[in-house]
């Protein structure tokens, strides 16, 4: 019984640590490159269904800071993205990938500045 409890606790702890690491100050640990295309696919499908006029997503990572994207994704509040039905159908991994894309390319992300 004790052994089972220890194993359960260890697994639980491991899961929590892994999950929290995904949201640490280094940012989410999803596949941001994959997230970019998953995000675009959401709008492509949404546009084909006639829910939005353009297949070009209306929000881009540079519209907010890393901290602002963190609030959006941690609260899972995707209202401002539109295409609500398509967001509901995404898996947790897909959302983590999209979050990684937005976080790592945010307005204040450390990606190199351009001459603008």
């Amino acid at each position, binding site marked *: 019984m004790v052994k089972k409890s220890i194993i359960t606790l260890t697994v639980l702890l491991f899961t929590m640590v892994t999950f929290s690491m995904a949201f640490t100050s280094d940012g989410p640990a999803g*596949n941001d*490159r*994959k997230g*970019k*295309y998953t995000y675009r696919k959401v709008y492509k499908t949404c546009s084909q269904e006639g829910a939005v006029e353009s297949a070009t997503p209306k929000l881009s990572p540079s519209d907010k800071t890393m901290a602002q994207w963190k609030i959006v994704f941690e609260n899972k509040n995707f209202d401002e993205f539109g295409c609500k039905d398509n967001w509901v159908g995404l898996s947790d991994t897909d959302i983590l990938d999209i979050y990684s894309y937005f976080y790592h390319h945010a307005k*204040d992300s450390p990606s*190199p*500045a*351009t*001459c*603008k």
Partner: protein
Amino acid sequence: MKLRYVSRYGLAVITIMTFLCSFHFAFASTKDNTEEAMGRTLANQAVKNANRWSTTDHAKIDALNQDFTSGEEITQACLSCHSEAATQFHKTIHWTWLASGDKSDMRYGKAGYSVNNYCISGNAMEDKGCLSCHPSWNKKGVEGEVNCLKCHNSSGFNFDEALSDIKAFSEDSDPETEDIMKDLQQEVKQAVTKITLPTRKNCGDCHFTGGGGDGVKHGDLDTSLTKPNRMLDVHMGTDGKDFSCTRCHTTLDHNIAGRIYTNPAVETRKSLIEDDLAPKITCVSCHSSVPHKNDSKMNDHTDVVSCQACHIPTFARVNPTKMWWDWSKAGKLKDGKPYVENGPYGKPVYKSIKGEFKWEKNVIPEYFWFNGSLTSTTADDVIDPAQIVKVNHPVGDKNDPEARIFPFKIHRGKQPYDKINKKLLAPLLSGKDGYWTTFDMNDAIERGNKAIGIPYSGEFDYVETTSAFPITHMVTPKEMALDCTQCHIRENSKLAAITDLYLPGRDKSGLMDTIGWLSVIGALAGVLLHGLGRFFTRNGKEN
């Protein structure tokens, strides 16, 4: 008898009125003259075959119907038919960024010692941020393959991003990414066949955003010219002549007419009548040196005043342009982080990475004599920091037969200079070691000057500089051109800065004015007396 006097005095009044009216007409414009100006007739003739045409549908070319995994593969596909294109292009300044054509002379060019007062230097292509505008793949500069699609693709597709993602996905073990990769390759394949002669957008992607953003550098070139109306530019207006850039910037072996570094854009002003193979780069090429109607006084101006001086009364008429850039203010942080402050027009007036800016719209140009050449102060030239340094400035004076009074944007600012060697400096800006990351200007200068091979003493300060850009786009319809009284006027003449010539109406000479007025009054009195004399003496005839 009474009737006779009424008739006589009535005729006298009519004579005087007719005379005065004739006097008025002599000075009136001839706008209601229906004859077309010769310059317009010639220009319409020169461009009457405006449609661009091709004999090839690139969607049917086998070499382009493949799954590309890199930009270099696309270039090889292009070269499989256009075998000499890359060889030609490697010799152009668009590729070398050096006026001389190769590294044997580094003096002039973005990849050489040339500097400006915007992002200052390309650091011999070491600043990879600048290379987003170099027509090579993956910001490799002259070490890479020519990216033909920069100038010859109309899809607007981001090939660099897509090919980089294809490469990453191909190395990924995730089976889901394989589907994404296949979709992406299909998109690349579709986009790559959209081959075109260079469009306004192709050229504009770099030239409308010169200096680091929309309308920053030139003032007469910004994204408003991607789809302009004729009020913005009579030549490029989509509701007017709808010219592409290459309509005037004609090309020979991939060399594009119109650059100004060491040489003027054109050596002589030739019309197509004189030389039908002359580049169409000047107004004279199509409009001739007698562009106005035959009886127009304006035709007497063309040996002194450029067409642009009157026909581009203001620039930056849609989007604002940057007029001031102070690098000495760069580097301030808020809570330890760089920040941006926006001002009028929604444009940044402060950026930690760059300093302080001023923007303006509807800018009235400054006018100078200009023979087509500009001086250039490079990072290897000694300056006098006690003076405002002219990074570049128009060449010419009234005695130069090729010089005309020409409109310019003058961009002012402050930039770093070497306090010991008295030379302008070339800080490295982008990348992990650049100023935009480290905020260490001294270190950025050391790295940047090392890249171009010019020694740095280790001590720097900031000096005020100016940079001159000829204004030659955004040509207004003729109704909006300057009229005579905007220059020929005592106060606030547009040409107040051109002081080395006598400008009637603006300038005053007591002797000249006295002689002039005496002539006018004398002529008036003479004609009047003569007319009245003849009338009252009835030409010497008896009743």
